[in-house]
């Protein structure tokens, strides 16, 4: 399967490409009052209003206080989300058998690509947002 790899500061992550709609450059967003802490704001993209998620805050609960450069627009169910990331790396092909689950936790998957350990974001994780 193909995955899209990206960087949050120095950490490498990836996501199944079938979940991805497009990638975009960062754009101005509207903050949402009283929203969940990892919702940075809303953007308008191709006619849709999409919430932008502070990905590192959502995943690790630590705010890396970084300037995000790119958004990965993903589709979960009927709705879209924009994951704010630092850098987009590349689209790579991996074998599903190379995906390992840490502690047999289905939510925590990693895969090894070019001797880089990449955390693979799962559909389940994303659906929780």
């Amino acid at each position, binding site marked *: 399967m193909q995955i899209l790899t990206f960087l949050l500061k120095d950490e490498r992550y990836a996501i199944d490409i079938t979940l991805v709609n497009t990638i975009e450059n960062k754009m101005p967003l509207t903050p*949402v009052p009283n929203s969940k802490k990892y*919702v940075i704001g809303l953007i308008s993209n191709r006619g849709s*209003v999409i919430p932008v998620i502070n990905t590192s805050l959502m995943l690790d609960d630590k705010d890396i206080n970084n300037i995000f450069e790119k958004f990965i627009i993903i589709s979960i169910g009927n709705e879209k989300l924009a994951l704010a990331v630092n850098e987009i790396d590349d689209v790579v092909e991996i074998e599903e058998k190379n995906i390992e689950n840490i502690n047999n936790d289905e939510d925590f998957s990693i895969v090894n690509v070019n001797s880089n350990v990449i955390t693979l974001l799962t559909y389940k994780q994303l659906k929780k947002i």
Partner: protein
Amino acid sequence: MSNDFSEISNVNKKNLDELLHLVEELVINKVRIEKMKNEVSDSSHGKILDQELRIISEIQASIKKVRLIKIKTLTNSLESLVSNCCTEYNINVDLIFSGQETEIENTLIIYIHNILNYLIKDICASEFAAFKNESNQIKVTTYSDGKNFTMVIESNGKGFNYEDTCEKLNKKNLDLISFEEDEVKKFLNIINFTNNFEEFLKLRLDLIYLDGSMEFESVANEFMRLTIIIPLTSSIMQGLLVTIGDQIFAIPLDFIETIINKNTVKTKKSKNIEMIIYMDHIIQLVRVSDLLKIEAISEPSCIIIVKSNNKRAALLVDSLLDQTDMVIKHKHSIMMDIGEIKGTTILGDGLVTLVLDIPSILKEI
């Protein structure tokens, strides 16, 4: 009888939704085009833009019509429901359905269907079954005045004593939307609609969501009438743009009564609740910046008096910007628990603007 096929079409709902979505985007661009028209010096360009605007308005109107569906599509289902009730309760009921040509947005049809379903069952069960009338009649009348869709369901069954019921519940009228939940349950108990509380409450919530009303009237032993009014909200509506802090918000014009300057009214404070006195009304002052936890830039002076369901509030905002046409998109599920926000709209400058949910705010304060 030749079937008039021109009236029937099977439109793939998904395709239709996409089309409607695109039309909504067109409306957003309409605002931009109007702006452009003002900046254009060449009159021939201005004419072209005028044409575009006209075409967009006509598409808007046509699309509105596409979304509309006639009530009579429910006729068959209602008739079979009534006949089932007849069989079940061993009664005879005449269903008189008038105003079947009334058009209603197809999104609302399901609500109407559910309500009718529930009520007819209950009426048959409690009104007729026990009463044993000679001719049981359920009259369903629907009409629309463009702004609201009204459906009156009348039965000539048992009914109930209106004044007594009101007294018991300590209410002036039986508009169930303004009742608290337990009050609704109490009412249903009184009139013996005890079939399925939960379902009724859910229907009530739907109506609240649709910003509609349901009002009971009755004369004992003569009739019982339920009037349901649902506003025909197209998602394209007019709004007022205001600033709160450094952000812009939109308030749907329908809820706005008037706009005044804070300095022109007297204010009162009691127990941390600020109030203003305006035209002999005492209205609670709401600092929207506090509500949204946004830092106000300076001492705000603009008050917008809003009203919904007979409740008023004076919203204090930083400044007024403009009036605009806007397409309100439903809010993303991630914002479901933010009551203050009704939805989002995209203004001419391409930025997302949040639309305040006035009824929700009024309930909060």
